[in-house]
């Protein structure tokens, strides 16, 4: 069951992105946060071993929605718009395991 539910603006063109190696369908104009959460209920793991996080403020203020781009660069899911073929990781690709504190 996804976390976010599309109620409006549902007839936008489809866009495909890759998340942790899997193909994910989303709509043009979606943020990464929307793309992730209309397909699941998590964005990332907390570095402190207290479970999954799925963003909080949705406006770029809490920084609790970080994901990694293909090149290893970090980005905020809630303020990054998706583009066809975008590849992201929900954990640091150079450091694939989370570290309990």
């Amino acid at each position: 069951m996804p976390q976010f539910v599309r109620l409006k603006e549902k007839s936008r063109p489809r866009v495909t992105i890759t998340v942790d190696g899997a193909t994910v369908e989303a709509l043009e104009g979606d943020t990464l946060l929307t793309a992730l959460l209309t397909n699941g209920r998590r964005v990332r793991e907390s570095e402190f071993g207290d479970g999954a996080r799925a963003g909080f403020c949705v406006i770029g203020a809490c920084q609790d929605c970080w994901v990694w781009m293909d090149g290893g660069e970090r980005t905020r899911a809630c303020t990054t718009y998706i583009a066809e073929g975008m590849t992201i990781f929900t954990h640091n690709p150079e450091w694939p395991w989370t570290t309990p504190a």
Partner: protein
Amino acid sequence: MAMDDPRVVVVGAGPAGVRAAEALVKHGLRPLVIDEAPLSGGQIYRRPPPGFRRTTKELYGFEAAKAEAIHRTFDGLTDVIDYRPRTLAWNVQDRVLYTACDDVVTPVSFDALLLATGATDRVLPFPGWTLPGVYTLGGSQVALKHQGCAVGRRMVFLGSTPLLYLVAYQYARAGAEVAAVLDTAPFSAKVRAVPKLLSNTSMFVKGLYTMAALHRLGVAIEHGVRPVAVEGDDAVAGLRYRRRGEGEVRIDCDAVAFGFGLRPESQLADLADCDFRFDPVFHQWLPQCADDGRAGEGIYLAGDGARIGGADAAEVSGELAALSLIEDLGGGPGDKARSVELSRRLSSLVRFQAGLAGAFPWPADMARSLPDNAIVCRCERVTAGEVRQAVQRPLGGGCEINRAKAFSRIGMGRCQGRFCGLSSAEISAAAQDRDISSVGRLRGAGPVKPIKLATVLDE
């Protein structure tokens, strides 16, 4: 401060920044307007991404006309200002504003800086608030307004702020299932605030309309509740809360949106050396500025980033601060008659906000009763118990919030204390039986948001 070609910078293109830029242009200036968002409009009048189809009426409801006016005004200015969207202002030092866009850092020296940075939700933690499915009220609204999505299938809205009813109503109207609206304030607080709220009849009526509409839509509204915990293993499955004078109740839901009003984005004002004082009415530390926006030499504050006043007050204070700036630059007396008129309107709007603060009080007791193992800082996973221990240590760097920061890392995470600053101060104060105004505040530090490792480009 008379000069031929003064460099005037406005940070923020919300209602305050737009009206400020408009006034500056009217008086012959060409300000630089910086906003980290890709489109203008700020929070309330945030514009949808390209390709979205809803009308302004659907997006902004009662405020559609005002939203259109702000968008039209700003679109009419972009040729005569230096507009830099997608650009973060992340530090101020020695009259230089540091900005970042993509990988490029650009220092901008200024003669006058007008900060119209807006606000974010003010929160108090409760157990389970870091679980997937818990969002701020403002955040849940942005998901709907900006992405057409509800943040859950079955929603509970919780808190103490006019946004509580507004967002719940917007969700219900959009077809979301609203399981409950839980107001932490007792109904009597609202009744007591009525005389002050009547200072702005149209806002008052809109508020009543929203509550009545929720009622009509069959949404359960409860007053005087306290959240106990969000339940769920990997994500929200329900919320436990306490009714006044009764036991605990559990409600099934897969999302909780909560908030207790707003807090200003005042980090840049802090870095620009503005004075801060604890405001007992709004129950938080606010940067000090005169009613006309003057906050220090060459520094002006406007909108919700200075004092929570709402969108109408943001427009008024933006223009007013710009007129003060123009006068200080030596470009003539500004427009005295207009300033007087704006000041009058602003003080009436501020009176209304003080009424709202009474109707939607901050539930400080939630910090006192927060269990020791509850997370307070979601960035560094600091618990309430760790904050309490830090301030109760016998030796340390002063008995205040910065000591808690040094010993527990509270406020040192990547949100820079935006979401734990006030609650950790509240917890520290309660642990020492002191008033919150006496424990100090977390200082703003640059960069105000994380920036990429970047190339520095000199202008």
